[in-house]
């Protein structure tokens, strides 16, 4: 897509938001919902729309951990970093995931098929230790189950 075309599309996307109205997070969420991440060019458009500096928008986009600055993988695996998971072997699950997929938290595999995301506790602790495959809770896991699951995910088309 040409840059101008993209600009127009994003402008349209965020046209409902107003300066001085507490809309920055909502605008960034809307962009991310549409593209799966917040492209750099969107920050300029959002800044113009809300009459903020680009630096301020960039500052916010990078401050909050839920905004992605790179395109999402086809399957996103969230690893829960919460305490109930930790006490039940969550670190084992993380190490198994990272080693089997060959990537760290916040990274995608080379083919963008799989990505790891560091997730915060959402209170479904009866499934600890758990991961979220495209938002769906999978658990309780142990390292061996995690390795098997990661291998299945790598195999899937």
């Amino acid at each position, binding site marked *: 897509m040409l840059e101008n075309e993209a600009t127009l599309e994003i402008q349209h996307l965020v046209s409902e938001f107003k300066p*001085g109205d*507490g*809309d*920055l*997070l*909502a605008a*960034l*969420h809307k962009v991310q919902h549409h593209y799966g991440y917040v492209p750099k060019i969107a920050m300029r458009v959002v800044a113009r729309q*809300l009459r*903020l500096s680009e630096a*301020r928008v960039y*500052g*916010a986009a990078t*401050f*909050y*951990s*839920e*905004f992605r600055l790179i395109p999402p993988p086809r399957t996103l695996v969230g690893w829960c*970093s*919460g*305490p*109930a998971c*930790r*006490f*039940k*072997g969550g*670190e*084992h699950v993380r*190490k*198994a995931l990272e*080693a*089997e997929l060959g990537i760290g938290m916040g990274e995608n595999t080379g083919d963008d098929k799989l990505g790891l995301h560091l*997730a*915060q*506790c*959402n*209170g*479904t*602790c*009866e*499934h*600890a230790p*758990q991961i979220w495959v495209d938002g*769906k*809770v999978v658990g309780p896991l*142990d*390292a*061996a*189950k*995690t*390795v*098997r699951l*990661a291998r299945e995910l790598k195999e899937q088309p």
Partner: protein
Amino acid sequence: MPSYDDLRATAEPAWHAVAMPSRPLFVVSLNTSSIASGAEATLAALRELGASGGFDVTATGDTGVSWAEPVVEVRRPGGPAVLYGNVTAEAAPAFARAAVSGIAREHAIGIIDGPAREGVPALADLDWYRLQVRWMMRNCGVIDPEDIAHYIARDGYATFLRCAAMDRDELIQVVTGSTLRGHSGSFFSTGTKWKFLKDARAEPKYLVCNADEGDPGAWVNRVIMESDPHLILEGMLIASYASGATYGWIYLRDEYPLANRRMNMAIAQARERGILGENALGTGVRFDVEVVRGAGAYVCGDETGLISSINDMRGMPRIKPPFPAQQGVLEKPTNVNNVETYAAAATLLRIGADEFSNVGTEANRGTKMFTVSGAVARTGCLEVPFGTKVSELLDAAGGIAGGLAFKAMQQGGPLSGLLPAHVAAGLPLEPEPFRPLGAGMGGGGIVFVDETACVIDLNNMVSWFLEDESCGRCTTCRGGNQRMYEIFRRTARGEAHPADPQLLESLSATFQYSNCFHGSLSPVIMNNTMKYFRDEYDAHAVEHRCPAKACPGLIRYVVEHQAAAVADAAAICPARAFVQDAGAWAIDDAKCIRCHACKDVAPEAIAIVDKFADAAPPPASPLATIAPETVRVQARP
């Protein structure tokens, strides 16, 4: 706009149809926990079965019984209402056949509305329920949170109407006099906060509902939002009348999409009925509210961080004063309470100060919701009187699972503390008794820890979280947490330095100069564990040994028996660390990442041993050029 009586008249038949159904009604709990356990599939399966099986199916929020999700209540004309657990889609056909005309004993948790029968206990007699006083949770798992009619039919918004007829100062006085304080962990008088906003001179005035429940291991607010969203709106309406606020924001964390959907739905339904808007239910109160979706930042749980976030900035807390009541959202006077506090205020005013004061303690009247998780047999959310003992809460949760010993309690998220079993067990759950222990009670999350946990590993998790979530504004917090995490990381690697305890004490004394609680409370868990678990620090740092065999640098995985299962262990190893020499398997320690997968598949054949049992420990880290005596601990002012 319809009057309240009109709304009530339309709402009651809708509620009665599900409260006293003319044929069996299956009520499926739909909340984040139950959905993770497959409740959506259960709902679909029951709907299909009900179409030909002579029963109806509907949904509710969260009973708090996470330990038996998917939970289903069955209401039958002439029969008792029964709460059932573990109703998966696969179990649904047999369950429905039994529950439609009798009691499905295999799944029964308890009888909701009567005494024990057919070997099934009354719900109120169960350990899980016996302690509970479900005031704030009275609609949780009872009504459909997506249908305002259910809320209204059960006296919803009647409390607001009554309050709006009171004198504002008198209303605030009732709240102040009730001892109601912020349930988020701050425990600041709610009535006093409302008065600050009422007395503020600038206009307009705003309310914020802090729904950024970021403490890992706490989901109290999620339960209310997913089960009874109108209770929060009613609490905010009452606060808006008392303080003169005309607009509000509910700042809701991104990890709770279902809560977000239900809050937005509740707001839309309340607007349609003239409950939110220009003239709330004809009282003349003007108040409307919107949901702001957070984006993953723990410090936005601090009220000034949250306000910065709504104000189009990074969610960085700032120094007070000015207080939010002077300068908050859009620089206007603002009052911030959390979800449970608004719910508690609406509840207090519904039941009246007299009855409210019959429950709880002298200093803290009423109830508090807690979520229990970790090493317990039963994970979930309960509401108990203030002053309930930790040991009683642990008993309600079925004790520590697996017959293991209770080692510690980690309450209120990473800034509130970690207390050993012998100190925690007898503690009454109210803020005051925690303070002399150098800890806080926090906002309601309680994670129980069993004897298999390592205190250094736990500090590694906490200090990593605190460093990662520091907003970075003040050096004491940003740098302090970096250094604290560094020390725990090297301890776990087996490279602790003799000066580390002094360095930690020095850090602890420095953190207090941080701008906000994130920094000043960062050392709480470290302080608690240094005080109560110093032997574990010494085992790691002096003896180079991790007693719980958790810290990766101090342990080794070895093949203990050349059993057949070792081949499976080698196959599961994601690090390809298994080597075979003349038929004998071994683990290449340089490749082993301590993920434990091999021991999961071959528990008998693989052993975890102390890495330095008979080898020299690694040299201390390069920082170790500091002599312990040169580390100066700054005195507290």
